[in-house]
């Protein structure tokens, strides 16, 4: 009886080891046996022109570099962070992946998973990209290639604003509140917000924080990852008093940001809401959701209104930089592809396909719509541009921050609750 038990146990152990050993093998990408190279690329454009841009650009690169194949995988935006982290953990990561700088990229760099690109970015690219490169700089080294700059502001449907009698863009929060009241009277929602995805709601808090907090406070919080300065509380109080005027669409808590006509971008695209606070990628998203899938003809834009009594410099902008990073074990052609991405031609194509602002100053001529021209103008004048706070402070703190803001939107939280949630998250 006993020997039998032991034998059974031993057989099990052996079989188990074999099975586990089998799991550990495999994976990896890059150089194939015949010298050809396969690059895997993860981007977040699952539909329309953006998806086509990646297919076309990859095909052009393959044509110019025989022996290189690019395998494209379009990952839904809300799935990207989690999926990428899992892939990086598993040791079988994509060679090229979307990155937005800040704490999230820093976490990947700290884990030794991102390639140091400092000496691999071409001199031409460095000149053309200018300051947008700094978004991917960590400890003086560069880990990403920017493809678009995405400052945020309020996108509008000019027709709806005109119908409501709002003729001038609101310059202060008080003016915005007055405009909201007029728009509400016409029967459409003043502002759409996709709170289901949390970050669109959180962008309101970020922008209030941008007005309330000085640049130093924003930057030092990136290192300390705690909200000790009283300005964080002021930002929450400002937002709370704005929320009290009920400026948002009905059921915003279960409204997504970008998926379908019922999303916040969809509401704007279908003239169900007059405004939306969003980054500069919004024209492209809205265009894909209009009834005829054409760009919204009456799309307008104005910067986030000023808030009195804060330490932030007027005109400062909150925004992001979209870029691409190479995995640490990616083949050398990965960096060639990054340099290829930011040449004038591809950046112009990018700006057109995504209807957004290109990172390269050479390609700014491709920006033609009035809304984006206003964004570009404000961007050029901005004293500084802060990265999205959830990106800046990393996934852990960023997530808690976003959820705490959504709680406040739903009437469940408080300004102090946001500060507490951030400080609590840092300990997890």
């Amino acid at each position, binding site marked *: 009886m006993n020997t*039998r*038990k032991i*034998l*059974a*146990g031993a*057989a*099990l152990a052996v*079989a*188990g080891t074999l*099975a*586990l050993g089998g*799991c550990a093998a495999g994976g990896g990408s890059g150089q194939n046996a015949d010298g050809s190279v396969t690059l895997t690329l993860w981007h977040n454009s699952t539909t329309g022109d953006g998806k086509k841009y990646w297919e076309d650009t990859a095909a052009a690169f393959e044509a110019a570099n025989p022996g290189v194949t690019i395998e494209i995988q379009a990952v839904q935006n*809300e799935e990207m*962070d*989690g999926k990428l*982290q*899992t892939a*990086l*953990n598993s040791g079988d990561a994509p060679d090229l992946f979307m990155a937005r700088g800040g704490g999230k990229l820093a*976490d*990947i760099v*700290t*884990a*030794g*998973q991102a390639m140091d690109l400092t000496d691999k970015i071409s001199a031409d690219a460095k000149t053309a990209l200018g300051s947008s490169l700094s978004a991917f700089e960590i400890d003086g080294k560069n880990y990403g290639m920017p493809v678009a700059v995405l400052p945020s502001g309020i996108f509008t449907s000019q027709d709806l604003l005109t119908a409501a009698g709002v003729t001038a863009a609101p310059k202060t929060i008080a003016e915005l509140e007055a405009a909201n009241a007029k728009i509400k009277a016409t029967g459409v929602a003043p502002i759409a917000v996709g*709170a*289901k*995805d*949390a970050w669109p709601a959180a962008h309101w808090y970020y922008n209030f924080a941008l007005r309330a907090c000085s640049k130093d406070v924003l930057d030092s919080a990136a290192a300390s990852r705690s909200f000790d300065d009283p300005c964080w509380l002021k930002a929450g109080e400002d937002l709370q008093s704005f929320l009290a005027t009920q400026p948002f669409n*009905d*059921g*915003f*808590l*279960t*409204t*997504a940001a970008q998926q379908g006509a*019922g999303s916040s971008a969809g509401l704007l695209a279908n003239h*169900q809401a007059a405004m939306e606070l969003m980054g500069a990628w919004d024209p492209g998203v809205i265009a894909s959701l209009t009834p005829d899938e054409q760009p919204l003809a009456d799309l307008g834009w104005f910067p986030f209104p000023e808030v009195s009594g804060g330490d932030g410099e007027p005109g400062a902008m909150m925004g992001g930089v979209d870029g691409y990073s190479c995995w640490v074990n990616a083949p050398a052609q990965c960096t060639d592809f990054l340099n290829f991405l930011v040449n004038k031609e591809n950046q112009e194509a990018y700006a057109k396909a995504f209807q957004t602002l290109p990172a390269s100053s050479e390609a700014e001529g491709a920006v033609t719509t009035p809304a984006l021209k206003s964004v570009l103008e404000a961007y050029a004048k901005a004293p500084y541009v802060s990265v999205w706070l959830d990106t800046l402070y*990393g*996934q*852990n703190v960023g*997530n*808690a921050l*976003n*959820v705490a803001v*959504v*709680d406040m*939107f*739903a009437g*469940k939280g408080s300004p102090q609750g946001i500060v507490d949630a951030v400080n*609590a*998250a840092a*300990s*997890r």
Partner: protein
Amino acid sequence: MTTQLAASATDAGSRRPAGEGAHRTPSAGRPPARRRLENWRIRGELAILLGPALVVFVSFVILPVALAAYYGFYKWSGFGTPVDFVGIRNYVTILTDPAFHEALGHNAFIVVGSLVLQGPLALGLALLLNRKMRAQSLIRVLIFVPYVISEVVVGLGWGLMLQSGGALNGALEKIGLGALRADWISDPALAIWTLLIIITWKYIGFAVILFLAGLQGIPEELSEAAAIDGASYWQIQRHIVLPLMGPTIRIWAFLSIIGSLQLFDLVWIIWGQYVASTAGTSTMATYMVANGRNAGSFGYGSAVAVVMFLISLAVALVYQRFVLRRDTAGALTGGTT
């Protein structure tokens, strides 16, 4: 657990083939060499038959549980080997986090709500469907359909219909009941009830099928005898059918409780990655994914998983010990009790 399983399986396995062997060769003076060969044959058979299942069980159940317990003691962002040992801090944070208390409360609400709503409804439907009537199989199919549809489809469908600008509110408006319009899934006061109703709609088919199977197992003669003795239909159901359905109902309740404790997919699809806690529909599982995987705090998430495991295990054991004991006596306990 594994050794117990292995041991009892070994016993059961050895008893049967050995018995058969004895039957084939009734002579008492069997050569010992052959007996040894027989033993090896049995061991080989066991290794082949049990091996794969045990390997899968150990590598995908036991090992992950052990690893989660290990990671739970670290602050770990998921990259590389965990080094930042924090002892039981993660557990202290979980047990003192109001958001976790809320999630636990929602789980408890769903456990009780599912039992109270689904049990009587499903029993009634099963009794109804057990009688001979027109279109019986069609109705059975219709009731069972929601259970077969994937959770994702159910979540997306209901999510779209119940949005503030969705089909339900539109329909209410059109038939002149505009006053009943509500934010079914985004109003924190309503959302959990909406969830409970969707869950009931989705899983009642399973309960009905289980109960129908239970009803089939009750001999017709008992009802006939009772009817001859003058019992009414309701008296028969109350005093004969219901008591005999006991084991089925208790097993269904067990499955329902465990399912409710681990509820994840429907909530995740309808409320997304972030707003479940805000809408008041978060469960322990959504809390785990939101604060573990999504927040990149894999150590913390693992600790939540362990807490969830222990809670489910405790509930399961208590239920087994006090409720299921009679039903499973002899089946799960190896006939020793």
